């Protein structure tokens, strides 16, 4: 990836993180940790990869993304706002009564391809979308983002079996492997590891990616495009809370909103980063 593109993506990702903090702070609830760990991924997908048009959110041939780990909606909303699907101000009413932005993604929100949030379900819907693409001989890709805790759900493996059986090579599942779930480290709660071996055993092509390095992200998705006849799982090694010092690798920030002081600190850190990138 050239330096200019990388810097552009880093800048957008920083703004996406600010939106995550803005949203969860105003909502006084929500899931900042896992949202920050997928901010670079979603930035890359919506700004460098996916064929989407904010003026036609339901365009037939668009690429689709199902946020199977739907609780990380703040990141999706923030990236959709940056991409122009709706105004950044919507983030300020996230989770409020009467607001467009629901606590978990709703298909009726512009840019949101599927309602999700009950874990394990998004990947099945993504399989259905990918199958429809195959039936219609359309070239669109379907991306679905799962949590590493989420893959403890049995339905994920039903879907994994289905995707490889039907050779859904237009489906790319990204597992956000930040190692933490609500009750603690995934290895201690009820370990889903080895996640890579499991996807391999289910007939998927597996790629490991550094979730916070755009060169690694680009390489992973370039490799994914070359795979024919099987679905691709990208295991992204990420840091929960990435980009906000006091949230990084802290399980306590899975589902807690920053207070005013914490909000100010997070915004100040992200603003400093932004100045550095734009400077």
């Amino acid at each position: 990836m050239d330096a200019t593109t990388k810097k552009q993506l880093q800048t957008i990702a920083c703004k996406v993180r600010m939106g995550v903090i803005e949203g969860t702070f105003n909502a006084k609830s929500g899931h900042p940790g896992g949202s920050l760990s997928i901010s670079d991924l979603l930035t890359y997908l919506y700004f460098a990869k996916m064929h989407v048009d904010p003026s036609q959110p339901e365009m037939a041939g668009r690429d689709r993304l199902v946020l199977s780990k739907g609780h990380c909606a703040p990141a999706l909303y923030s990236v959709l706002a940056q991409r122009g699907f709706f105004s950044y101000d919507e983030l300020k009413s996230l989770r409020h009564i009467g607001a467009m932005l629901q606590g978990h993604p709703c298909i009726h929100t512009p840019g949101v391809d599927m309602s999700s949030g009950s874990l394990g379900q998004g990947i099945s819907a993504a399989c259905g979308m990918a199958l429809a693409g195959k039936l219609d001989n359309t070239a669109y890709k379907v991306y679905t983002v799962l949590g590493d805790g989420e893959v403890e759900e049995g339905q994920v493996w039903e879907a994994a079996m289905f995707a490889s059986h039907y050779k859904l090579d237009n489906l790319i599942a990204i597992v956000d492997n930040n190692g933490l779930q609500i009750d603690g480290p995934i290895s201690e709660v009820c370990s889903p590891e080895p996640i890579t071996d499991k996807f391999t055993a289910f007939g998927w092509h597996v790629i490991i990616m550094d979730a916070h390095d755009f060169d690694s992200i680009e390489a992973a998705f370039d490799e994914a495009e070359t795979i024919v006849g099987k679905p691709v799982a990208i295991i992204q090694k990420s840091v929960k809370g990435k980009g906000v010092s006091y949230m990084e690798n802290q399980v306590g920030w899975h589902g807690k909103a920053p207070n005013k002081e914490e909000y100010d600190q997070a915004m100040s850190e992200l603003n400093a980063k932004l100045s550095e990138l734009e400077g």
Partner: protein
Amino acid sequence: MADVIKKATRESYGEVLVELAEEYPNLVVLDADLAAATKTGIFKKAYPEKFFDCGIAEANMMGVAAGLATAGKIPFASTFAMFAAGRAYEIVRNSIGYPHLNVKIGATHAGISVGEDGATHQCNEDIALMRTIPGMTIINPADDVEAKAAVRAAVEIDGPVYLRFGRLAAPVFNDAENYKFELGKGVTLRNGSDVTIVATGLMVAESIKAAKQLEAEGIDARVINIHTIKPLDKDIICKAAAETGLIVTVEEHSVIGGLGSAVAEAVTECNPVPVIKIGVNDEYGHSGPAVDLLKEFGLCADNIASTVKKAVSKRK
């Protein structure tokens, strides 16, 4: 008496899917390793390229159906009622109901008439479960003619539909030539002024038989067939409550949450009259031949007639 043709509504389902495939190029069928039993196997044979077996994985099947629907397909997802409404309930609720996707759920082997397989496979709770999902249409056809018409009606509406079919061959009493299916409309099969029997599915034919028995005993029973349980035809129910003052509901389903509950809920709002519920009384079924089980659980003309008789005499 002329021989009555009997046919299981699951058979009708499989056949009509084949007919619809030509008219609706976006129609696809999913099953979870039960194609031979749900009769989607008939479709599979005719349109193998539009049939997708999901294996024994009903939760994923419902999610795949949802995804297909977002891309403009009209998926029919089929398995036994126990797994469609029971096992996959939360997926149906969150991935199909909440986004209000155009998925048709073809649930076969509903109720106690599953027979020998016993309690684990006899789903007497599916109507109750599906009724709680906002925007879900529920159709429980009574015979072959109605089942085919119901599937056609389901394809024509944009939104989730739960179609309930039976394993047991049911008498065909509707006339294919003249039958018109109106979604959400009850059908008065017999007029009467003493009492109204409101029945659904397999119990409709039994209720007609019961009404004939009652006639011989001087009781004039109205019989209403409710094929669409949701949205319920409240008008026909409330009119019957007002005109006959007594309602007996009959369903091959638990008395909790099904047709009887829906009717009672409607009647208490518009014209409170006694509603006696015939169904499975908060218990599990067990193994045995379907016809014997139906008798044992009171899901037969004789018990309908005697229950109605008792209720009518109690009122007098």
